[in-house]
């Protein structure tokens, strides 16, 4: 049950909060329990048509020919939609924010690159009529060698999956085939380490499997506008994507949504709206495009599978002195959001631990698998799994309690993170202490007394303390002589520098023996200056 631990950081607490900590009813709960919440498919239209899609049975194949002449004459068929009917038949989701190149067709015309890829659509008077007509379409394929493994995909001579990225890696900022993180000198760190442990972690794709499958209904409105009822999690994102693919102004589309039958990241990809709108435009009638459960599993994009290698250098006293991560994100055949997941992953390395030497290379790789997308912490979740498994192994290797081993290395206020940002408002040590207490996990005294506020420093990460430089002015506020009294509402998320310690500080981990050479960490000198945006990269301030 929910419990507020007001004793921790009591001097920073603000108890005048109105909503936080108070139970509150969901605004949509009455609709949910009465079955009246308006999901996209809870709208009824006379003479509704149904769109069903022919999908690739192969992971990689060239389409030699498509014969839909019999299907076109099948009962109930109103229209066949072919690749040539799609106004802009190449897109990438994040093109809306100028990230990545258009690489994915709405309907494949020459090559299919994953099993389940859409090839052709049939609009008919019922779902059954559309399905029966689909069975009459004859497609002739030349199967091509498929690559289904991330490391195989980046080997020389591997089949090229995606014509836009022929080397099977996403291209960052027009030139880089992966994302890097460099902090300190990781090789020197491994040389100093008493113990080095290395392991490989392989994740599987995970389907969101929302109880409501992806779908949409498009209804022609007056004045050339189309009303789109949709299950999307990202209404305006889907609207702009659908407008781009249909080559219409976004104000010609009126998206209605917001009641989503489970998304978890699986409803941001705009899987149905563009073709549903196109079908309504080509037939002049309301059209529904609803994924079957099988389609949701086969074609609905999953959480991507990551392969992660972690190598840790450990000092006998339990400090992690070096951590190297090499990871490959399986984007599937097209980009969707894995390119961004890689950026998130690199931003999360090396986990919530202060490590003086960190090195990471993370790749977004194309394979002939279902394109992967967002799902609950994507990019981070798998990495955390790998890192925390590694932490357990590290604890065993140095003969420490696994929680104490973690606490020794956790971020504290004033530590320098591998991304050259100072750690602030840390509370992980306190969380670990409470968790240990709740689980009756014995912690030694010094760990029970440990504090996020004490013992942190840039030096702990092997970096000269620059906290008094102008860039970090906020962290250099004069320490108040007494704990600050509660203020109505903190506006800045800055923890006040605490008063002089009144308790015995826990043994601070000894500083790293050798600071990194300036050459090995050139970015140290630019610390604090550029502002890093997760998607745009370095951004003007």
């Amino acid at each position, binding site marked *: 049950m929910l419990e507020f631990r007001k004793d921790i950081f009591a001097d920073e607490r603000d108890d005048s909060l109105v909503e936080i900590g108070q139970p509150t009813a969901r605004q949509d709960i009455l609709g949910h329990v009465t079955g009246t919440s308006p999901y996209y498919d809870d709208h009824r239209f006379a003479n509704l048509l149904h769109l069903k899609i022919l999908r690739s049975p192969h992971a990689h194949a060239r389409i030699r020919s498509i014969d839909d002449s019999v299907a076109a004459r099948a*009962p109930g068929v109103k229209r066949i939609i072919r690749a040539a009917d799609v106004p802009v038949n190449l897109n990438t989701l994040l093109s809306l924010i100028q990230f990545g190149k258009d690489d994915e067709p709405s309907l494949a015309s020459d090559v299919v690159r994953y099993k389940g890829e859409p090839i052709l659509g049939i609009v008919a008077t019922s*779902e*059954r009529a559309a*399905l*029966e007509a689909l*069975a009459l379409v004859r497609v002739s394929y030349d199967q091509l060698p498929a690559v289904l493994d991330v490391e195989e995909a980046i080997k020389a001579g591997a089949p090229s999956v995606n014509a836009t990225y022929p080397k099977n890696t996403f291209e960052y900022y027009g030139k880089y085939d992966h994302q890097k993180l460099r902090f300190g000198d990781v090789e020197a760190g491994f040389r100093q380490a008493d113990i080095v442990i290395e392991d490989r972690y392989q994740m599987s794709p995970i389907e969101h499997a929302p109880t409501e499958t992806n779908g949409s209904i498009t209804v022609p409105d007056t004045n050339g506008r189309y009303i789109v009822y949709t299950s999307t999690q990202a209404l305006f994102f889907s609207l702009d994507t659908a407008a781009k693919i249909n080559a219409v102004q976004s104000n010609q589309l009126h998206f209605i949504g917001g009641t989503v039958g489970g998304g978890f990241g699986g409803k941001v990809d705009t899987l149905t709206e563009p073709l549903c709108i196109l079908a309504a435009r080509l037939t002049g009638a309301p059209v529904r495009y609803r994924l*079957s459960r*099988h389609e949701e599993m086969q074609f609905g994009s999953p959480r991507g599978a990551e392969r992660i290698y972690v190598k840790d250098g450990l000092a006998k006293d339990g400090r992690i002195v070096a951590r190297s991560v090499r990871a490959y994100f399986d984007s599937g055949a097209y980009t969707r959001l894995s390119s961004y997941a890689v950026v998130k992953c690199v931003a999360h390395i090396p986990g919530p631990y202060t490590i003086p030497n960190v090195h990471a290379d993370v790749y977004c790789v194309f394979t002939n698998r279902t394109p992967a997308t967002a799902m609950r912490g994507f990019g981070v979740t798998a990495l955390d799994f790998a890192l925390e498994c590694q932490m357990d192994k590290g604890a065993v290797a140095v003969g420490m309690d696994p929680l104490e081993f973690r606490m020794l290395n956790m971020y504290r206020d004033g530590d320098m993170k591998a991304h050259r940002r100072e750690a602030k408002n840390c509370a992980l040590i306190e969380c670990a202490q409470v968790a240990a207490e709740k689980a009756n996990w014995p912690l030694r005294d010094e760990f029970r007394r440990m504090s996020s506020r004490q013992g942190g420093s840039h030096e702990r990460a092997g970096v000269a303390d620059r906290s008094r430089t102008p860039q970090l002015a906020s962290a250099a506020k004069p320490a108040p002589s007494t704990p600050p009294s509660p203020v109505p509402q903190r506006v800045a998320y800055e923890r006040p520098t605490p008063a002089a310690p009144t308790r015995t500080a826990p043994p601070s981990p000894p500083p790293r023996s050798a600071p990194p050479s300036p050459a090995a960490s050139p970015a140290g000198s630019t610390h604090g200056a550029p502002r890093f945006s997760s998607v745009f990269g370095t951004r003007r301030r």
Partner: protein
Amino acid sequence: MTVTIKTFDRLADAANALSSERGAHFFGGGTLIMRAINEADPSVQTIIRSTDPALQHISVSSGRVELGAGVTMAAILAERELAFLHPVARAVGGPAVREAATVGGNLFANSPYGDFAAALLALDATAQFAGGFGQRELPLEEFLGRRDRGTSLVSSVAFRRPPTDVFRFHKVTRVHPKGISVLSISAQLPVASGRIAGARIAYNAMGQTPLRAKAAERALEGRPLDAAGIAPALAVAADGTAPVDDAIASAWWRREILPVYLRRLLLGAVHT
């Protein structure tokens, strides 16, 4: 093209229709056929139904149990005399599926479904057929081997009622309390003078259809149900099986865990 549905009062008429129409399927509880219709499966064109009460018939006499093919898992759970089968019936879906799923339908369920059929196999059941001019009764094992080729209508299954505590069942799933089978094991383990006499062991999800573990049965004959006694049976537990890779488990995993669960079942370490 829509599906044609033909409903018959008498089972014999339904059986005749089933054998005379191409692409005809008999409709039990609907959990298999309706899915095929919903997906516009072109092989399902004609549906034969019957409202014959014989389908719902349950008879439990001292020595023999007979279950109409239309008896649902819920009906079995409501029958106190069939308590030994309750763990099996409860393993078939959630409550709504149990209200629909039938004994007859389970005989046609593809792996990894078919836990109830496997239990019937371990009970040495026979299948009875309605109408037509073919055979009236077949041992279940023989029937399962040719179920996809025949067009005869199963009207009921029958088996000798096992003595108390002789029948055991365990289903291995990843989700509890309701999950699809990684595999399930059903066994009849009669003991005479401390030794197994005439064991019957059947697996589900260890092949395309439920199958008997004949090597393990033979290895148990005359042995006591203790660690040493069952060791030879465990060594041959997977003989004759042909599990497949599916979304629930790999064939490798099924083979690996089979002896583990068979050991627990034989030693009575799993409670059903």
